[in-house]
């Protein structure tokens, strides 16, 4: 019996001696904050508003706003919607409340949050009813950015005739994890185009960028953000408009081929679209393949609405 124990212990010691403990340390800066498909996340705090409210009495509405995306929100707006016959603010309020919340960064990997509290007041339910169900709506409208920085391969050897090892290979790049924003770039297809006749010794990198709205809200034009949180009417053309800027190695890409160079725009259809961007100046064919930084910036407004049902109860007296 003792021999058995001795034998097992020795084997155990041998196995243990072969083990290497992991340090478990991760570089503090090695945090990719540009991940996920959330932007602003908003919810009613518990019991504000309460599920049941007596008529003709004040009650609090508290909103918990968290910026779970990687873009800072400046000049965001929050608008509350009531059934005006039964609920209203206790005092005169503006149409919408402005807010600012910083997004995720390597110094604040969770993003900032904000609480907005308002006081509302119920009105009389009416003689014929004991209760009245109502809904409180909260709509946020805010500017947001999707920034994607990636490395793209620039290979001037379009037909693969150069016989040499290459530093990189031109291929499609998929982005399944999002970029820390509700509108995400899902895929980039890279093509190397032969330059036009006037520059036969050059190739032009060409990128097909696929964009998708993966959030629960709607994309609006960045100049219509305030209007979206007001009682002003919006045109259908104000929705699904995204401005795009792209650069390769710091050189701007032309994303509006055949049209004006600045102010390239994407129009989402069924939450998706794609755009083609090309480097204006070609790259010398003699240059070998190299990896270049590709940056894409999408600029848009975003809006979404949450709601909570409440019941307004009549105060019954004998």
């Amino acid at each position, binding site marked *: 019996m003792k021999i058995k124990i001795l034998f097992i212990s020795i084997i155990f010691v041998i196995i243990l001696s072969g083990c290497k403990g992991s340090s478990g340390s991760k570089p503090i800066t090695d945090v990719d904050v540009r991940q996920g498909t959330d932007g602003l996340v908003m919810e009613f705090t518990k019991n504000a508003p309460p599920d049941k409210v007596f008529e003709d009495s004040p009650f609090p509405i508290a909103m918990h706003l968290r910026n779970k995306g990687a873009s800072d929100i400046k000049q965001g707006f929050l608008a509350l919607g009531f059934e005006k016959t039964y609920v209203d603010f206790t005092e005169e309020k503006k149409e919408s409340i402005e807010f600012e919340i910083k997004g995720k960064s390597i110094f604040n990997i969770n993003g900032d949050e904000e609480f907005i509290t308002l006081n509302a007041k119920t009105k009389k339910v009416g003689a014929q009813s004991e209760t009245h169900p109502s809904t409180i709506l909260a709509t946020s409208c805010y500017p947001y950015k999707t920034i994607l920085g990636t490395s793209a391969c620039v290979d001037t050897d379009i037909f693969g005739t150069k016989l040499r090892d290459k*530093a990189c290979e031109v291929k499609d790049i998929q982005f399944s994890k999002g970029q820390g924003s509700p509108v995400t770039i899902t895929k980039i297809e890279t093509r190397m185009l032969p330059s036009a006749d006037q520059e036969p010794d050059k190739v032009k990198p060409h990128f097909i960028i696929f964009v998708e709205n993966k959030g629960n809200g709607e994309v609006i034009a960045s100049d219509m953000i305030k209007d979206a949180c007001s009682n002003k009417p919006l045109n259908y053309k104000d929705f699904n408009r995204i401005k795009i800027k792209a650069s390769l190695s*710091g050189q701007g890409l032309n994303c509006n081929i055949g049209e004006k160079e600045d102010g390239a725009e994407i129009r989402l259809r069924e939450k998706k679209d794609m755009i083609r961007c090309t480097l204006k100046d070609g790259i010398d064919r003699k240059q070998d393949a190299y990896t270049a*930084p590709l940056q894409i910036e999408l600029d848009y407004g975003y809006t979404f609405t949450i709601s909570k049902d409440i019941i307004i109860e009549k105060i019954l007296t004998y």
Partner: protein
Amino acid sequence: MVKRKVKFEILFLVLLLIIISGCSKLGGQGSAKGSETGTDGIIINFLENNPQDSYLVSSEDDEPISVTLEVRNKGSYPRSEEVNELSRGKIYISGFDRDIIRMDDNDLSQILRNDYLSGVSNINPEGGFDTAEFKGFISPDELVVDKYEPTILATLCYPYVTKASPTVCIDPSPFDDKQKKVCKIGSTQLSSQGAPITITRIDQEASSNKIQFKLNIKNDGNGDVIRVNDLKKCNPYGDTSSDSETLKRKDFDRVELIRATVGFSELECGPLDEGRFIRLFNGEGYVLCSLDRASFEEVKSAYTTPLNVELKYGYRSTISKPIKISKISSIS
């Protein structure tokens, strides 16, 4: 007593197991490696942490970067009596955006220093050694993305020479079976010659008026063979001088036959591209050389003699290392 014996036996076995598992094979110290063997020429490797696997760049300051390569001559060229032409060779670095990773003086290539790169010999069994250092900095201003992941490619192009002197049989009467001979005409398998291009086999065939030699050669290294005069086309940027071109398909797989002699007699060889180049197909090639009977007609019986072959070529090998550059912004 028996129990104790069993205990000891088990303990002994376990100890033996531990000792064996800790043992590594010892190289025989006495077995000196031949100086003209192996299939390496000049090899390069990134020095550890040069470049680093990852860099953190703050938005205010340039971050220094150093790409250092160990250069080792593992082959047998140049021998002491040979002209050292290795200074025609160059190391290039590429694969990254030159606006982001800026090398000092825009220096993206270095000439091989032939003084340090002598071939493997009996007095220098490890071969020559040198380092090539490329220093520069990462410019944060040009880094527009948070993370940039280029692959640093180091390309070495150099001239090299393969020499072999196998013993071949010269038989003036190859079809006379009755005579006792010291050798017979046939094939000779060769070992490596301390160079990436190897003469693998020599097939011999005799007719009544000549002896033919088929010299089979092979690219046994990991790189590409290029015409020795086209080394300057190796530049991955192809823009340093006005006459520079990039390598074309026809510049590859050409090995120059410098010399093929039997004794003092020069062999007549073919087929040769442009009169001097042996072509390789899928890394292998051959040349047929013949020795006229006039060269050995005075000899009455078979004899052995060295067949001296010298090949010259350009060789290109590439290594790569992926790096990661992360840009951090300061708290302020």
